[in-house]
C-alpha cells in the first residue's frame, strides 16, 4: 500500500508545503486561543489554524452545513486528490472507499448548537424550534466521511474510525486492510479534528492534561523536556490517497512512501492512565515491524506520539526501548506536537504525513522547545533543529484515551518494489 497524495491543514500550515516548512523550521505555531475568550480556563493556548473556508474553495452551502472538522477533511481530501494526479472519473467508483478518523468530530458545532437551543446554557429542556436542520449530523457525525466520499463520488466502503487519539493512525491502517483484502482499489484515508471549543478545553482542564504555561504559548508544548506540563490542544487534518503499489506504478504516480506495517493493541488498564512500562505500545510496534518484515535495527526515524504529558513521554520512551532494544538509543525520535500541538484524532494522520515527508526529503523534523531532557527520557529527541539524514524506514506511533496503542511502519518507495 502506497501513499500517492497528501493534503494537510494544521496550525500555520495552509498547505502540505507550508506544513513541511513549519516542521523543518523548528518553530512552534501554538498561540493564545483567539476563537473565544480563554481567560476562564486553566489552559488558554492552542494550535489554531488560520482556515478560511471560502478561500479554500468551499461553497457557502457547504460552509453552512458542515462542521469545521468536516470542512478540514474535505479541503485536505481535495488537496490529496489533486496531489495524486489520479483521474477519479476514470475509476470504478464502487471500488473507491473512505476511512476517516476523528476523536470528537463535530464538537464545535455541537457546542454552538447547544448554546442556541439552551438559551446560552440556561435551559435543561432545550428549545426544538431553535435547532439547526443539520443537528442530527452533529449528533451522529458519520456525515464527515460522507462529505469526503462526495468529493470524488466514492461508492465503496465508507466509514469513520473513532478511537480517540489513535483515530488518525487507525483510520489509515483500516484503509490499508481494505485495500489488501480487495474491498477497494483506492482509498481516501486520513483524519480530522477541530476541538478548540470551550467544552473540550474544559474537559482537559478538568484532568490537568493540558499545559497551563499561559504566559508563554509559543513554548508551552515541550515534549520530553524536564519542564513539560501537559499537551497543547490543536486542530488539523490530513488526508491521503492510498493505492496498491502496482496500481500506482501502472499510472506512473509519484509515491511518497509505502505503508508496510500497522498494528494496534489496548492496554486494558485505564481510560486515561498509562502504565510506565510501555508494554502494549511495544507490542504494537513489534507486530507492525513484523508485518513490515522489518528488523528493529532498520528503523531510521521514530515519529513519536510525544504529547508532552509527564506520563506519556516516559511511557513511550519505555516502549521504544522495549521494542527496539539498544537500537532505540541510536534512533532519532521527535514529536511534531511541539510545533503544531495535539489535534486529538487528527494528529495520527498528520504524523503519518510528517513521516512520509521525512522519507521524501531525508530530513527528520525536530522536537521544538526541548532544552533539558527529563532524565527518564534519555533517547535522541532531535532537539530544536531539523536533521538531514537518510530516512528509509520510519515508525510512527499513537496512544490514546481508552487505552489504544497503535504503530505504523512507513518506508521509502524504493523499498516498496520488493
Amino acid at each position, binding site marked *: 500500500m502506497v501513499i500517492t497524495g497528501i493534503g494537510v491543514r494544521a496550525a500555520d500550515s495552509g498547505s502540505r508545503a507550508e506544513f513541511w516548512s513549519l516542521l523543518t523550521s523548528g518553530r512552534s505555531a501554538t498561540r493564545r486561543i483567539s476563537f473565544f475568550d480563554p481567560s*476562564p480556563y486553566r489552559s488558554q493556548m492552542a494550535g489554531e489554524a488560520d482556515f478560511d473556508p471560502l478561500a479554500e474553495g468551499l461553497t457557502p452551502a457547504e460552509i453552512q452545513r458542515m462542521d469545521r472538522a468536516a470542512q478540514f477533511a474535505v479541503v485536505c481530501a481535495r488537496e490529496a486528490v489533486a496531489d495524486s494526479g489520479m483521474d477519479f472519473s476514470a475509476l470504478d467508483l*464502487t471500488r473507491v472507499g*473512505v476511512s476517516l478518523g476523528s*476523536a*470528537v*468530530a463535530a464538537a464545535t458545532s*455541537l457546542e454552538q448548537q*447547544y448554546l442556541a437551543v*439552551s438559551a446560552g*446554557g440556561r435551559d435543561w*429542556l*432545550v428549545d*426544538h424550534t431553535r*435547532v439547526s436542520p*443539520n443537528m*442530527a*449530523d452533529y*449528533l*451522529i457525525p*458519520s456525515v464527515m466521511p*460522507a462529505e469526503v*466520499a*462526495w468529493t470524488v463520488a*466514492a*461508492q*465503496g*466502503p*465508507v*466509514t*469513520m*474510525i*473513532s*478511537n*480517540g487519539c489513535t483515530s488518525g493512525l*487507525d483510520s489509515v491502517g483500516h484503509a490499508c*486492510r481494505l485495500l*489488501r*483484502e480487495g474491498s477497494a482499489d483506492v482509498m481516501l484515508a486520513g483524519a480530522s479534528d477541530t476541538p478548540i471549543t*470551550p*467544552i473540550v478545553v*474544559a*474537559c482537559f482542564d*478538568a*484532568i490537568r*492534561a493540558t499545559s497551563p504555561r499561559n504566559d508563554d504559548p509559543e513554548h508551552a508544548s515541550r515534549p520530553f523536556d524536564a519542564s513539560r506540563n501537559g499537551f497543547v490542544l490543536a486542530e488539523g487534518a490530513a488526508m491521503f490517497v492510498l493505492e496498491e503499489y502496482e496500481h500506482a506504478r501502472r499510472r506512473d504516480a509519484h509515491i511518497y512512501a509505502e505503508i*508496510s506495517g*500497522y*498494528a*494496534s*493493541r*489496548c492496554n*486494558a488498564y*485505564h*481510560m486515561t492512565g498509562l502504565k510506565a512500562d510501555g508494554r502494549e505500545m511495544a*507490542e504494537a510496534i513489534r507486530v507492525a515491524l513484523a*508485518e513490515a518484515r522489518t528488523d528493529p535495527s532498520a528503523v531510521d526515524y521514530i515519529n513519536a506520539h510525544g504529547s508532552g504529558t509527564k506520563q506519556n513521554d516516559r511511557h513511550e520512551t519505555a516502549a521504544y526501548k522495549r521494542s527496539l532494544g539498544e537500537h532505540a538509543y541510536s534512533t532519532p525520535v521527535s514529536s511534531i506536537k511541539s510545533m503544531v500541538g495535539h489535534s486529538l484524532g487528527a494528529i495520527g494522520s498528520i504524523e503519518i504525513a510528517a513521516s512520509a515527508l521525512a522519507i521524501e526529503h531525508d530530513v527528520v523534523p525536530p522536537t521544538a522547545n526541548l532544552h533539558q531532557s527529563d532524565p527518564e527520557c534519555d533517547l535522541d529527541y532531535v532537539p530544536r533543529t531539523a536533521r538531514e539524514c537518510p530516512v528509509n524506514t520510519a515508525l510512527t506511533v499513537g496512544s490514546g*484515551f*481508552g*487505552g*489504544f496503542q497503535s504503530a505504523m511502519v512507513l518506508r521509502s518507495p524504493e523499498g516498496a518494489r520488493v
Partner: protein
Amino acid sequence: MTAGMATGAGGRTVVTGIGLLTPNGFGLEEFWQATLERRSGIGPLTRFDATRYPARLAGEIDGFDPASHLPARLLPQTDVSTQLALVASDWALQDAKVESGGYADYDMGVVTANACGGFAFTHREFHKLWSQGPDSVSVYESFAWFYAVNTGQISIRNGLRGPSSALVADQAGGLDAVGHARRTVRAGTPLVVTGGVDSALDPWGWVSQLADGRVSHAVDPEHAYLPFDTHACGHVPGEGGALLVLEDADAARHRGAHQVYGEIAGYGSTFDPPPGSGLPSGLARAAELALADAGVAAAQVDVVFADGAGVGELDRAEAAAINAVFGPRSVPVTVPKALTGRMHSGAGPVDICAALLSIRDGVIPPTGKVTRVPAEYRIDLVREEPRTARVSCALVLARGRWGFNSAVVVREALPR
C-alpha cells in the same frame, strides 16, 4: 497488512455468546419472547417532560438499575449507553463461558459501533459548563463522551488487549462493527467482543434526533413506527443494542466452547452515489457483496432482516433493492425493530441476534403491528404472527443517513 494471512487463520467465524438489552427485552430470551408475541417496547418518553416536543414516543429500556449490575466506581464515570454496553458485554462473555486463561494475552479484542457517544452524560456537562463555569465540568467528561468509550471500557473491564476499534456509520455502523470484528478474527485474533449500544434520550439528544426529520410524530405507540406499511410515518428512536462474542470456529472448538449460535458468514458495505445523481442506492450491491463473501446464492437465503426505515421513500428503495437481489416476493422479509424503535448502532447487532434465534428455533418473527404493505413493494413481509420455517441462512441489512449500506450473512453452524 493482511486479513487472513498473518497467522494462517481466515476460517469460519462464529457467535458463541450474546448479551442483549432492548426496550422490549432485558436479555436475549425475554427479547425473543416479546418479539415473537409482538410485545412492543415503544411508549411515551419518561426520562423528562416531553410534552413540549412534537414527538413524544420512544423505545426506552425501563427499570435498568446500573448499580445492581456494575461496580459503584464505574457509575459516575459512565453514560447510560456505556452502562448498558458494559452489562451487555458481561452477559455475552458469561454466555460464551469464556474463562480467564482460555486465551493468551492480546488474543481478545473489542470492536464496537457508536453513533451518539455518551450523550446524556455530555449534555449534563455542557449544562454545567455554561450555567456554573469551567470548574464544574466532570473529570470524567473527557472519556465518557467520545465514541470510543464503549470499546475502551469493555476492554478495561474484561482485560481484552487485542486489536480494538470503534466505528461510526449511523445505523449501518452496528453491522460494520461485526464485519470488522470478523475481519479481525480472520486476521488472527481468535476472540473479539463486538456489536453496538446507543442511547440519546435526554432532552438535547431527543431534539437532535428530531432534527433529522424522520422521527414519527404519531401518538399511538402501536402505530408510530410501521416499516413498509401503507401508513408508514417515520421511525421511533430507541435505545439499547447487543454485544456478541465472535470467535474463530477452530479456536472456539479448541477451548471447548459449549455453544455456537451460528456463523457470521459474509459482510459487505457500500456507499450511495452522491445526492441528486439519480443513480440507485448501493443497498443491493452491499447485499450482493455479503452473499458473495459468504459464498451463498440468493436462493439459499431463508429470510431478510430489513433496515425498515418507516419512511415511504426509503421503504420503497429498500424493497426495490431486495427485489433486485432476490426477485419479487421470493424471500420472507421482516423488521423486528418495529417493536424496539431504531437503536442506531445497536440495531444491526440486535437483528443479527434475532436472525440467530430464527435459525435456532425455526421461526421468523413478525414485523410489529404492520398490517398493510403497498402491493408495489412486491415483498413478502412477515406480519401479524410468527412464521414457522426452516432457517439456515439469513441476510441482515442496515442503512445509515446519507448513504451508508451494510449487509451481514448469518448462517447456521456446521455440525461438529
